[in-house]
């Protein structure tokens, strides 16, 4: 439609419009219930307040969701991220305990590096199943989703392993330049992913493979390499998330660490506007989606919803946001406008 859109129309049509709006509404509700919700105070050179907590708490989901965004863009899905996070935590914690000097900086760095490398390898395993063996992504990653918990149990001997390393726990509770380190790590990975995909041709090729794999193959795109890369990257992100979660409690419980985080991550991606059908993706959308989920978690106690209604409330909000994003639902809301042509192709067999 070659009409020149006004600024308002352009804003309304912007793909980030709905995620940002949803986040905004959630914040307004919180402030309405508790006017001091957004207050931030400075203490010991660190910022404190709900907003800062939301930033810190959003880090694990944000990390996982960034990797998930690229996987979803290739028409895939990675269900194993929670299990990979648990493995990362298990590997790092047992390494720290087994080291000569448990509290040393070098111990923390070595353990975390080792854990991340293991996770990249696990992601590559997923990529192998999907791209080389042609197993459907949901099945391929389901394998590691189930087996991964077992692996991390085996690594920790089924015990809750507690570590004592101040450098490691800083990953979750530390502050740099007054901001939570965990959030800065997530922002760093966001920036890295943005550069990786948009400053190179990787993003375009990922989208191309996601939209039309066969056309991409015939155009010479090495889709196998690309799919492999995104799963390995997703493993990397999940590993970092696992480290942040473990650092938060200075311990690893192989059974519960990162449990269901794959679902929150997929939700963050979808709320951010990336379609599960693959193709075009939005990293900023995912960023906002992850913030939305962290804010929602914070909202529940803030506005006084009983904790047993926790999941129900979350589900209702998520449905509302998804409806807001659905063009069909929006059209119903906007009913009454003069009819415009709907460029929806009629299915040959649309039942009456």
């Amino acid at each position: 439609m070659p009409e020149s859109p006004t600024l308002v129309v352009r804003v309304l049509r912007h793909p980030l419009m709905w995620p940002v709006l949803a986040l905004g509404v959630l914040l307004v509700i919180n402030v309405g219930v508790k006017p001091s919700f957004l207050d931030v105070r400075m203490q010991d050179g660190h910022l404190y307040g709900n907003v800062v907590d939301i930033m810190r708490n959003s880090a694990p989901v944000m990390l996982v969701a960034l990797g998930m965004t690229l996987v979803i863009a290739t028409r895939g899905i990675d269900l194993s991220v929670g299990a990979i996070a648990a493995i990362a935590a298990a590997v790092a914690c047992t390494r720290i305990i087994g080291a000569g000097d448990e509290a040393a900086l070098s111990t923390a760095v070595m353990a975390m590096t080792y854990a991340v490398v293991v996770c990249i390898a696990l992601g590559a395993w997923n990529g192998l199943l999907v791209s080389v063996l042609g197993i459907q992504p949901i099945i391929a990653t389901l394998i590691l989703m189930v087996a991964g918990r077992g692996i991390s149990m085996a690594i920790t001997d089924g015990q809750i392993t507690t570590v004592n390393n101040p450098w490691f726990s800083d990953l979750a509770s530390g502050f740099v330049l007054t901001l939570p380190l965990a959030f800065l790590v997530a922002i760093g990975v966001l920036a890295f992913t943005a550069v990786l995909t948009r400053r190179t041709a990787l993003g375009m090729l990922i989208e191309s493979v996601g939209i039309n794999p066969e056309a991409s193959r015939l155009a010479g795109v090495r889709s196998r390499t690309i799919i492999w890369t995104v799963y390995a990257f997703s493993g990397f992100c999940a590993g970092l998330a696992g480290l942040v979660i473990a650092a938060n409690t200075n311990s690893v419980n192989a059974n519960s660490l990162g449990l269901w985080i794959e679902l929150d991550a997929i939700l963050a991606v979808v709320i951010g506007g990336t379609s599960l059908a693959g193709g075009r993706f939005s990293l900023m959308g995912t960023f906002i989606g992850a913030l939305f989920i962290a804010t929602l978690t914070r909202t529940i106690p803030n506005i006084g919803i009983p904790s047993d209604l926790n999941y129900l409330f979350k589900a209702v909000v998520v449905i509302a946001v998804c409806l807001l994003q659905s063009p069909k639902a929006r059209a119903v809301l906007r009913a009454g406008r003069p009819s415009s042509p709907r460029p929806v192709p009629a299915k040959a067999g649309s039942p009456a």
Partner: protein
Amino acid sequence: MTQMTEPDVVTAPGTDPQPVIEMRDISITFGAVRALDEVSLRLFPGEVHALMGENGAGKSTLIKALTGVYTIDEGTVLVEGESHEFHSPAASQAAGISTVYQEVNLVPNLTVAENMLLGREPRRFGAISVREMNRRARRTLLHLGVDIDPRSVLDEHPIAVQQLVAIARAVDVEAKVLILDEPTSSLDADEVEKLFTVMRRLRDEGVAIVFVSHFLDQIYEIADRMTILRNGRLVEERMVAETTQLELVRLMIGRELETLERLDREAPNTEAESGTPVLKAVGLGRKNTLEATDLELFEGEVVGIAGLLGSGRTELARLLFGADHADTGELTVRSEKRRLRSPRHAIDRRIAFSSEDRKAEGVVQDLTVADNMLLALQASRGWLRPIPQATRTKLVTEYIKALDIRPADPTALMRNLSGGNQQKVLLARWLITQPDILILDEPTRGIDIGAKAQIQAKVAELAAQGMSVVFISAELEEVLRLSDRLVVMRDRRKIDERRNDDVSVRDVLEIIAGEAHPEGDPHA
């Protein structure tokens, strides 16, 4: 209806010829674009009505207005004299209007019978009766002369058969109006004939058939009346028998005709066949796909491959490019023996291949025109070396201009372009990689005469500059017009090869028919 002389086939004398559908002064506006401007269309029972016009003339929009896909802004639709408004495809179907679209619009992983009866499955005690469904599907298919198992999965059949299933589905509803939007673009001569037989039968049963096709010969063979559109406006309604082909083309397009005529080539390029071949295939074959085939391609030469659908013409092209793996034989690219393991390998050896299936194997719908054009070049550079912005802009602007791509907007999404323009973008995608060897499989299928002429002219120009081209098309005229050498294929093997010295369409048809099997086409 006194201003029209009705031929005998159209209405029986003495009956009152009330149109079954009459669309009056229909206008539709998309944003600022007036897609249809006071267009009228009358459909009479028992006629085949051709809807003529270039791509973008408004044929599809008019059809979608009639089938309830688009909402009409102005104008009225009368069904047997009564005013109707169709707000959904379902409403239009309920009024007896059935449609078969150009692109097969079925569910690939359901069976043939399930596809045909989807949404109206016969039931027994509340559950779907599979036996009854298969029985009904088989009956309808046999009525059409299509002998396939209704229990087979749709995806197993070639596009042509899938198309026939789509038509069978539409016929099964006992429609008053049957709309066939380019049903023949992927059918071979045999199957077209089969379709025409069914169309004639339905017409004689009183169905009004709207027929859209780019093949003028088919229009003259089957249609009784036609409505000609240009730029969203009605040009004229005409009886086919009273209009010469030349008149019709002039009504449809006007000036592009000259481009076509100018192209009618000088002598074939004979010096080309000397020296070492750029591409040489010896015994190239693949099980159940193509028998061992030899082929040589010289610099600056256009080799045309003629043959019916399923003759192996597409299969040969795919083996030459490495899109499929060859089981046997040897491929030499510029005196270098190569086994092409993937399209990548071929592209690295400066071979380019544009697939016959534009939608599934060509365009990337949700990417921009610019990204689509640069995809192959970017893929061969690898993701770590993005094409610099300045080069991107330069290449894209250059090719949009050279191939007259419309809209001339690099940021437009590919899905919003017409078929002809998408095809030009795909051609640009390959030309940007600067190939030595260009394999074009049906590059002009389903696109309008203007774009067709432009693509043909470009191919001739590229060959003159030294590019070697393999040109495949179902339209023999087109193959003959462009090629220096002609390869004829049938039943998955090469049956003839000759220099294109005044070879006529009839000659080629005779070669193809020469040793015809009595059963005809293998997958019919």
